[in-house]
């Protein structure tokens, strides 16, 4: 059972629901506490563990991750810009780690793409884009629309190529 929630610690804030890349952390209908709805689909990415402001989520690691049943717990301290890990082995040995998660105050270095220079012809014709879909159209054509890309909408919001 990969992630699980300590019910007495969880206050149902929803951060784990928000961040889970597999969309398997949800709020229990009756108790309004988070829980892992599909443990088999959890790949122990620790996103929810780190996002939880109350450290209410823990991971019971698979044998490939925690071969001797050791405990791995973490605290992501946003204000300090660090993440700390504590590994406790079954024989009682403890290892502590502390690493940066950002080197600049949060949100201060988000690039404004409107002010960035457009890609040059050389970049557009680069072989690095050889396998990109043609719909990207890194050329000087007009407005990119579904029609100009020979696409049309179909029920359900998906699109398909109109031939």
């Amino acid at each position, binding site marked *: 059972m990969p992630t699980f929630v300590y019910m*007495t*610690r969880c*206050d*149902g*804030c*929803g*951060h784990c*629901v*928000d*961040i889970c890349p597999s969309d398997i952390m*949800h*709020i229990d*209908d*009756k108790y*309004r506490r988070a829980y892992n709805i599909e443990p088999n689909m959890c790949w122990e990415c620790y996103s929810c563990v780190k*996002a939880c*402001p*109350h*450290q209410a989520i823990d991971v019971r690691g698979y044998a490939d991750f925690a071969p001797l049943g050791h*405990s791995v*717990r*973490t*605290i992501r*301290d*946003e*204000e*300090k*810009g*660090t993440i*700390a*890990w*504590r590994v*406790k082995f079954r024989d009682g040995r403890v290892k*502590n*780690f*502390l*690493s*940066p*998660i*950002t*080197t*600049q*105050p*949060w*949100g*201060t270095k988000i690039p404004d793409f409107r002010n960035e220079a457009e890609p040059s012809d050389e970049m557009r014709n680069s072989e690095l884009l050889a396998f990109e879909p043609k719909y990207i159209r890194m050329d000087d054509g007009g407005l990119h629309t579904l029609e100009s890309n020979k696409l049309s909408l179909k029920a359900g919001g998906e699109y398909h190529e109109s031939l």
Partner: protein
Amino acid sequence: MITNTPIAALNAAGISYDTMQTYVMVMVALVIVMTIADMLHKKSAKFFFESADAAKKNAVKSISAGEKMGIAASTIATDVVTSGEFHNPVRRIVHLLTMYGFILFNASTAAMVFGANGADAMWTQVWHVGAIMLAIGSVWFWFVFKVDVAAEGNSPFSIDIRRDIFSLSLMATSITALIWSFNGNAMGWEFALVILSTASLFGGVYWSKFSHMFFKPFAAYDKRIRKADGSAENLPTITRDEPEQQQRHSMELLVDAPMDMGLGIKREAPKHY
């Protein structure tokens, strides 16, 4: 309006204070019995003590009685009195409104009923202020912060009685009490709704979240004790504040960085369902 005296009016309409006292005592008894039943059913007390014993074995240092007193005092000051558990300041305000509204409303009811003086000017005003706070807090919570609404995008109008009995009862108790008072119809349908709401609030403890008010302070105290004795639920205890940690090779990138980097994912409410 808040000078209306609904309890005195009820007494004047023929309900004696003895009858009211009996009803209040029945409600208190229901809360006690149902909380114990809830505890036995969920085995929460058993889990709590077993978990505390396990933590003791992992303790790095022992805590003196004085330190325990200090931890208890800070738990009361932070977690109990000011709902420090909530990181979202607005959510915290909502909880404080509901909590103090509930306390004021019930304390003033008890004071008037057991003092056999439903016309007491001060308690009557406290009763109304409490009911208004409770109504604002519980309705605010219901439409904005109820977690399946806030985090899962469910409609606030999708009701599950078992899940929502506590919130609904709080809302119903405060709103029907205010309507009862303002309409001045002591023995009318408004009073029937007040009785129904309070019976659901205090009689539904076994199924509702009511008993969290008894458990949460112990859980908060336990959390602080574990931090103080070094067991810390196996969580890391090292931080960037410690000079020796600042010397770590891994921390070189943060040498010139401010100690407060602001908020990252917590800058936005978790509503990206």
